[in-house]
């Protein structure tokens, strides 16, 4: 069984693939050695941010039950245009809607029983070094999964 971290990334990809603005251009853990091509914009990049792990009850006997607070990150990358802000906001609208479309979606298919929430959106960063300037925005999500210490691949 894959670690819940991978399960969360895969669930995010499934939920965000096929949205009107970004379509099938959703990439998980895309390495820096394989940068996006301009033909792949606008795109979503999914990767894992910080994770904190704590026992539910510190004095519990083995195996301890753990609360894992995960912060998946979704980067929206798009080419610069006069309507870049509007395009970005439309894509963000689609992302938030998709992840709240149902109770199951809001709990990331059950991986995060207490809910999976958008916690913040970064300012739009721009890099004009290329022949087509590029914008990038980071959406920070957060949610808790629960696993036993000896079974990090089984979400409780």
């Amino acid at each position, binding site marked *: 069984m894959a670690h819940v971290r991978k399960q969360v990334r895969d669930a995010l990809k499934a939920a965000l693939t096929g949205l009107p603005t970004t379509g099938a251009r959703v990439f998980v853990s895309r390495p820096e050695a394989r*940068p*996006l091509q301009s033909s792949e914009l606008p795109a979503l990049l999914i990767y894992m941010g910080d994770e904190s792990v704590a026992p539910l009850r510190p004095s519990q006997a083995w195996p301890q039950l753990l609360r894992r607070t995960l912060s998946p990150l979704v*980067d929206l990358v798009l080419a610069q245009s006069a309507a870049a802000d509007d395009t970005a906001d439309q894509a963000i609208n689609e992302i938030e809607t998709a992840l709240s479309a149902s109770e199951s979606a809001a709990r990331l298919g059950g991986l995060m029983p207490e809910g999976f929430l958008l916690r913040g959106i970064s300012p739009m960063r*721009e890099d004009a*070094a290329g*022949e087509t300037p590029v914008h990038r925005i980071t959406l920070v999500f957060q949610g808790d999964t629960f696993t036993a210490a000896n079974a990090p691949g089984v979400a409780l």
Partner: protein
Amino acid sequence: MAAAFADILDRINRDSIGLLADAVATWQGRCANVVFDRRYVNALGVASSNPVIRALDDSFPGVMVGDTIHVAGEDFTVASIEPDGAGVMLLHLERAA
């Protein structure tokens, strides 16, 4: 003395651009030999290139940011103009919309 050095500088600029020019750029019907560079850049995780023209100041007098320049078979928009203060300028280009 200063005028003589200015002449030398001008001659050096024209000779070097003349020797190193690898493209012809066209701006508002005016053609000039230029050095066209298009190195790879990674812009926020997107593979791209950084097209730049090196030309004599008087090749495109009055060129402005936002103007269209045709070089290497493509139209570009002038994104920035960087004169070196000694007779040569760099034009940073963007792909024309």
